[in-house]
């Protein structure tokens, strides 16, 4: 767990320190990619907690979601329809659902632990 947080901190500091910038036209795509990756991440955590985690699904989902979201946004720009809203909506809803499930699982585990301790 701490290692992954370290990875996050490392990524953020690397990004901030190197001061990499992308053209502002592509900022939209990147924001959607961030959302997609967050969605995959929380999906992975949930799957892990539910003991259905699959490595291939996780990694492929990560890249596929990002590409799909960016592709949708790209298509939307060229068709004049704000299709990236669809991606944002889908990922946003899924993010909330996943976090809710994770919360429930953690709460249940916590209650279980408490009960076990109580019986001892």
């Amino acid at each position, binding site marked *: 767990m701490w290692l*992954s947080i370290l990875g996050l901190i490392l*990524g953020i500091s690397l990004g901030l320190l190197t001061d990499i910038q992308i053209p*502002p036209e592509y900022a939209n795509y*990147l924001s959607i990619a961030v959302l997609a990756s967050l969605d995959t*991440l929380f999906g992975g955590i949930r799957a892990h907690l539910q003991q259905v985690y699959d490595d291939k699904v996780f990694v492929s989902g990560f890249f596929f979601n990002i590409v799909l979201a960016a592709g949708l946004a790209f298509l939307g720009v060229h068709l004049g329809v704000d299709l990236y809203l669809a991606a944002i909506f889908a990922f946003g809803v899924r993010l909330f659902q996943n976090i809710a499930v994770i919360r429930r699982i953690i709460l249940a585990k916590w209650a279980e632990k408490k009960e076990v301790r109580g019986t001892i």
Partner: protein
Amino acid sequence: MKKRILTRFTAIMFIIGLMAAIQYNTINEPNLRDTRDEWEIRQELSREKQLHSQLLSEIGSLDETLNKYRAAADASPEQALRETAGELRKSAGLSEAKGPGIEVLVEPSLEAVAMGLEIEGISPDLLIRLVNEINRYNGLYVSIDGKRIINTTAIRDINGQTAVNTKPVDTPPFSIKIISESMEDSKKLYNHLLASRILDDFYIDNLTLNVSEPQNELVIEAYDGTVDTKYLQASEGE
């Protein structure tokens, strides 16, 4: 197995962090490129230098006033105040101004007279352009047809007649008096007006500008209305 999951998560978190940081960089400091060439930068520099010297001279004059106040504080503060008030009135256009300047006569063009065209009044737009042109070349005090131009002067169309300070301007010929800071400035303005494209603009309206040689002593009358200070606010200084 557990280790592998952790590695995957760490890698994904790293990518997320990197993307978020890049997004943050992009949103917060859009890459503004300086596309000015050397000449434009030179111009900018000269503008700033001009501002610098102007500010310096302003500081000098304010220092002078301050010294005068200090010197006169014991003797007669009233006198110093009176002098300052007089200076302020002068720069606001509330008192008569004297100095080197030129007189510009706006007349109907010879062709218009020869063709028997009806002479119409000057248009406010043209007059505003002329005043802008004069201000560009350091015209200090200006009066149009005896109407003094001050900071709040409006040149506009009132009921079909061009008015300055809400008083109508005569149909040409009428004269415009311009006082500059020095004889040199007057000469500069004189040459500029002679060569300016504004002459063509006047000619389109069947008018000509007759610019007189710079004179040493030109008198411009004071602004005769009341200055509305309803919206003035005290500046927050020291």
